[in-house]
């Protein structure tokens, strides 16, 4: 049987006190990933994710372009996607109480 995920944006997760017991596809803004990449809000993110099953990450959409001949925009877009992939370590580590910083 296939799984049914629900899309949820990180900002909605932060803004609302919602009890989530369904599998989630977590959507990020580029700004979220920059913040996480700088090591800010990590504790808060981990506490928010502690009881949530995140099976999929949705990389930011707006202002990213991996095709453009503008190398600055393309490299920034790839960096954001790479950092979004790195967030896997936070999400997978939360279940085992492993420090993300120790893993990185």
């Amino acid at each position, binding site marked *: *049987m*296939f*799984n*049914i*995920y*629900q*899309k*949820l944006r990180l900002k*909605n997760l932060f803004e609302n006190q*919602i009890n989530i017991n*369904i599998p989630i*596809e977590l959507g990020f803004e580029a700004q979220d990933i920059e913040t996480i990449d700088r090591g800010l809000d990590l504790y808060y993110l981990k506490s928010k994710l502690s009881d949530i099953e*995140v*099976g*999929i*990450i*949705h*990389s930011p*959409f707006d202002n*990213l*372009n*991996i*095709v*453009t*001949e503008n190398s600055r925009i*393309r490299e920034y*877009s*790839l960096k954001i*996607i*790479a950092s*979004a*992939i*790195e*967030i*896997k*370590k936070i*999400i*997978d580590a939360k279940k085992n109480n492993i420090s993300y910083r120790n893993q990185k």
Partner: protein
Amino acid sequence: MLKKIIFHTGIKNSTLITEKEYKNLLESIRIIISIAEKNSIIPLLENTYEKTDFFEKIIKDTEISFCLDIGHINCFSKESIDKWLSIMAKRIEHVHLHDNDGSGDQHAQLGSGNIQFDKILNFVINNNIDITLETDFNDYEINKNFIGKFIKNK
């Protein structure tokens, strides 16, 4: 356990893409696949404004798999779900479901727009493909029941 990351090309019109831009896309996909493999995560490219012929080319030129977004097909590509499935079926690893009336990307409740979900739901069921409801979080049960009813009536 996190399994997949979904990303977009970021282009607004796939018919206007230059040869250089297409080469950039192939290189970007190669980089993303490489980073994803190192992190044991499956990267999936999602359709937004693109047409089928563009994705057909990507299938020939890369090993990337795809997340097929049904709402985007209805309001942006305007090509049939049958056509998308005939080209993409073997590379589809995930499906995004939401509805609209064709005039915009409304992310509306399933059944409230003009999308015919029978073909994509049959595809999902027959191939055991995971889906994401890209609708209002609070409508999760309503949309899940829409899918449940379809399965029951099969």
